[in-house]
């Protein structure tokens, strides 16, 4: 007989199975990488374009790699509502962050402290958003990613490494980590050709 806590464990197991494929890590890695490349190439549109591109990559991985391996589950309407609200909050936070960066970077006369510490402030805010993801998704490795993102700015501030390379470096590490999770997932769950055809009958 399961207690309520065990039912919650099942719910959590179901939920966590959708983080096993590393897709969210790949999403974050590519997004941070896109941000770094945008600063490097001075192409302001890049984060926005990469965001759309990454969405389709994620959709493709989920549709063609994840669901045929672990199956499809539809969460309860309450869970779906909570997830949607969190996505709206997350999207708004990223949008506001981009807007804030554009405004602060675009104004002619910035206070000296802002000019000096802008990368640290910006990466700090981005890391806070990633920490929020780690908290609501309860995926602890995202705290590490947040620390990596912040570290990029710290290194820029005190060791002279270009700001964009902090993004490219942390984005690259996060992307590699995500790909590692994806490879592990693909090995752990072989594709099932057809229902009932896994050789056990």
């Amino acid at each position, binding site marked *: 007989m399961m207690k309520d806590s065990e039912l919650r464990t099942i719910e959590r197991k179901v939920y966590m199975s959708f983080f096993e494929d590393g897709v969210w890590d790949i999403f974050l890695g590519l997004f941070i990488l896109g941000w770094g490349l945008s600063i490097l190439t001075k192409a302001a549109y890049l984060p926005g374009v990469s965001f759309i591109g990454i969405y389709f990559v994620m959709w493709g991985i989920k549709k063609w790699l994840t669901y045929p391996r672990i199956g499809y589950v539809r969460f309860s309407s309450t869970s779906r509502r909570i997830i949607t609200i969190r996505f709206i909050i997350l999207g708004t936070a990223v949008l506001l962050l981009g807007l804030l960066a554009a405004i602060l970077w675009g104004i002619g006369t910035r206070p000296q402290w802002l000019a000096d510490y802008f990368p640290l402030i910006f990466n700090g805010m981005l890391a806070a958003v990633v920490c929020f993801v780690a908290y609501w998704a309860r995926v602890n490795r995202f705290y590490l990613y947040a620390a990596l993102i912040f570290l990029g700015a710290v290194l820029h501030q005190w060791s002279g490494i270009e700001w964009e390379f902090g993004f490219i470096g942390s984005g690259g590490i996060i992307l590699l980590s995500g790909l590692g999770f994806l490879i592990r997932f693909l090995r752990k769950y072989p594709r099932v050709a057809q229902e009932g055809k896994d050789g*056990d009958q």
Partner: protein
Amino acid sequence: MATSNSGGEDKRSTPSIDRLIHEPARYTIMAYLYVVESADFLFLVKQTGLTWGNLSAHIGKLEAAGYVEIKKDFLGKKPHTVASLTQEGRLAFEAYRREMMQVLDELPPSR
């Protein structure tokens, strides 16, 4: 509520415990379906660790009892089966849990 299913197994052979849900594999299936809205067979096989054959047999019994609803469609050319708990199944699962807790609470302390 029905008192038997197509397999001839009594759902309530004791006064309060639903024997159909009492079977561990069926309880596990119902627990997974209870926390979601619906799940396909592949998902249930992966999560419960049952074989396809076992899962089909147990789901068949739960469906016959009116606890589970099955929808079959195709993903491309491949058959795709989705299971969900019916309202009756959800209520039966909650009742089973309540009854089992009551039974366990009434046990005398071990010596």
